[in-house]
């Protein structure tokens, strides 16, 4: 057994209050491996680390177990401090005695001491078997590919070129701007969409660091964080680029609500997007317009609120009243969603300008009247309990943003997850704007419907995340697993005992495992940069060749064996 020293932190009384640490210190010494125990008041000050390190050296212990706060607490600080003092990471074990013991068992001091003792014994046993993954270091390509040149993509591109990072901006259409090309004005600033996007486009076009690929399509995508290899087809020309990070800003599309409120059958039943087009062309003509909210949203198929339809509806309602004096506007809604102080004041402004709001229930939707063209709308007013008939010559449907149809293909190519509606999933809630693949970030409406303002904010956020990944010249594989308190490394496989069955390849969703033919036999190889250390391959390996060195089978088994000690 390796010599182990155990430190128990009182956490200024937080742990000491519920657990009798002196008694516990005596009890853990019964373990043959434990050569010394030490009770300290705190571990989160720089001098504490020095003190601990000198005690470790004095005792001659090889392994250190620290009973303190949870891995989400100060574990990272303690570990990095001790590694600076020359103690190897795999020899340090962190045991959570505060959140997982002291604070939750205040009413059971006896049970708390037993539990603390068991937890320390588990970690001591596990340390015996804990090993360390070999690291891999790769050179970073300080370039970023941005998919989609809408507001989010343009904002990301501008932030990156300002940081001096080369940007490849890929656009499915012919020109930058995305959905802002289709609308006339943006809320809440009221500036025209062209004005909003122009400074971004101008700066990007002037800067030689940015390359714009119109009419582009990704044909293949390989590699890992720091070095993705992408081939794309832009304007019928093949390009091969290598980038360190990828930002997805591919946006969303608006729903065409065929079949709803007689859309497609009746003239003058249009969507908000068509109204925007009429604003651009200057062909809006109405005496009385009815806006119907939640057309195709917040229902059984699409139970989400797309967040942008209410504000854009308010914007267009005011616009109609400004451009056509005397025109009436009715907004039929299920709830007006205007979160935030800015949008709420926008709503109040709309109210004061005379736009009429009528609430209806999902079960009694409005009915559009008229044979050859719109004559009116009949709606059951849910607040007053009466059916109202509104004369109208224009019905505008507020439809939600829905995911792009290409999302599935893009997600498959980049190995990403989509949520249940088809938007790109981020790692909620711990790592916003990040996806399950390191080095691939998402922003804007590709992630979730957002307004152009928020898309810009998210684009800039994703750009900073990408830039910080590429900041160093090199990336090490171990630095990619950002788990508090545990650096779990990556799966390792022994060349000698791997039989090449391929189970690991079939379960790995990160395409980190692959079979390679060496001397006529297939053996599994793990790409350290892609591996996320989930251990799914470990579970299916028939002969235990595949292992996670930090939490290997023996360490976990030892923890299970020691979990209950002599608990009575």
């Amino acid at each position: 057994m390796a010599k182990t020293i155990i430190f128990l932190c009182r956490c200024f009384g937080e742990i000491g209050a519920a657990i009798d640490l002196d008694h516990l210190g005596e009890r853990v010494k019964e373990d043959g491996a434990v050569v010394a125990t030490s009770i300290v008041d705190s571990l989160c000050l720089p001098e504490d680390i020095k003190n601990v390190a000198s005690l470790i050296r004095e005792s001659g212990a090889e392994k250190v177990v620290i009973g303190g706060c949870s891995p989400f607490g100060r574990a990272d600080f303690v570990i990095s401090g001790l590694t600076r003092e020359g103690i190897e990471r795999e020899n340090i074990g962190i045991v959570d005695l505060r959140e997982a013991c002291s604070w939750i068992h205040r009413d059971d001091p006896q049970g708390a001491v037993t539990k603390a003792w068991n937890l320390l014994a588990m970690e001591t046993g596990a340390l015996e078997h804990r090993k360390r993954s070999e690291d891999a270091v790769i050179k970073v390509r300080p370039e970023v590919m941005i998919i989609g040149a809408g507001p989010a993509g343009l904002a990301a591109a501008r932030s990156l070129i300002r940081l001096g990072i080369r940007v490849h901006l890929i656009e499915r259409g012919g020109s930058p701007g995305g959905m802002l090309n289709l609308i006339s004005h943006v809320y809440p600033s009221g500036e025209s969409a062209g004005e909003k996007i122009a400074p971004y486009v101008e700066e990007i076009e002037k800067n030689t660091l940015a390359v714009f690929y119109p009419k582009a399509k990704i044909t293949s995508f390989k590699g890992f964080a720091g070095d993705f290899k992408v081939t794309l087809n832009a304007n019928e020309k093949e390009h091969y680029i290598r980038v360190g990070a990828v930002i997805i800003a591919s946006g969303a599309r608006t729903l065409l609500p065929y079949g709803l409120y007689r859309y497609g059958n009746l003239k003058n039943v249009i969507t908000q997007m068509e109204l925007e087009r009429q604003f651009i062309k200057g062909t809006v003509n109405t005496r009385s317009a009815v806006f119907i909210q939640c057309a195709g949203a917040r229902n059984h198929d699409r139970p989400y609120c797309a967040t942008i339809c209410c504000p854009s509806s308010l914007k267009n309602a005011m616009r109609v009243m400004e451009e056509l004096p005397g025109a009436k506007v009715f907004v039929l809604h299920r709830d007006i969603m205007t979160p935030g102080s800015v949008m709420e004041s926008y709503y109040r402004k709309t109210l004061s300008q005379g736009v009429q709001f009528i609430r209806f229930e999902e079960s009694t939707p409005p009915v559009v009247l008229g044979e050859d063209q719109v004559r009116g709308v009949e709606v059951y007013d849910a607040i007053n309990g009466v059916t109202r008939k509104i004369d109208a010559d224009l019905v505008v449907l507020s439809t939600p943003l829905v995911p792009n149809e290409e999302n599935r293909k893009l997600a498959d190519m980049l190995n990403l997850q989509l949520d249940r509606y088809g938007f790109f999933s981020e790692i909620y809630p711990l790592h916003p704007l990040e996806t399950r693949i390191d080095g691939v970030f998402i922003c804007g409406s590709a992630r979730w419907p957002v307004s152009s303002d928020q898309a810009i904010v998210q684009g800039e956020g994703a750009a900073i995340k990408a830039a910080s990944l590429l900041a160093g010249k090199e990336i090490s594989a171990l630095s990619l697993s950002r788990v508090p308190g545990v650096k779990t490394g990556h799966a390792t496989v022994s060349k000698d005992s791997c039989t090449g069955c391929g189970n690991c390849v079939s379960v790995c969703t990160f395409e980190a495992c692959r079979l390679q033919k060496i001397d006529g036999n297939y053996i599994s190889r793990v790409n350290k940069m892609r591996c996320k250390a989930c251990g799914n391959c470990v579970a299916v390996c028939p002969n235990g060749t595949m292992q996670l060195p930090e939490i290997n089978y023996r360490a976990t088994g030892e923890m299970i064996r020691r979990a209950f000690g002599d608990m009575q």
Partner: protein
Amino acid sequence: MERVKILGICCNWSPFACYNAAGMTGKKMPSNFRLIRVMCIGRINQALILKAFEFGADGVILLECKDEDCRYGPGPEVGHENVKRVRRILHLLGIKQERLVECTFGAHDKEELVRALWKFAGDIKAMGPVTITNGQRSEGLRR
């Protein structure tokens, strides 16, 4: 009275975030509960679950992410499959199948996690310790 022993195996993400958050807010939890943290519940195979029973656990609870939340992909599905299969083995061994359960949590479901732990602790307490020591005694068949 002999206390029952409960082992939890927990995924590092949503359930551990819940457990940690519950700990930070000082929610009371059963003190006969021990937790083993792994990166993903998909890393746990049937042998490890059975090992827990071998080493004296009276109940094993797998704490998993929700199916769609798994950041690795197949984790919770592997967990469901493992529970189904190990339960069959437990039946053969004469251990009540209800001694192995799985629960899924979102990242913010700390109340649910604490409730699930208390419920499981209560269930196991009602069942008592695993009584089999060798093949002759069987709680499942006596039932």
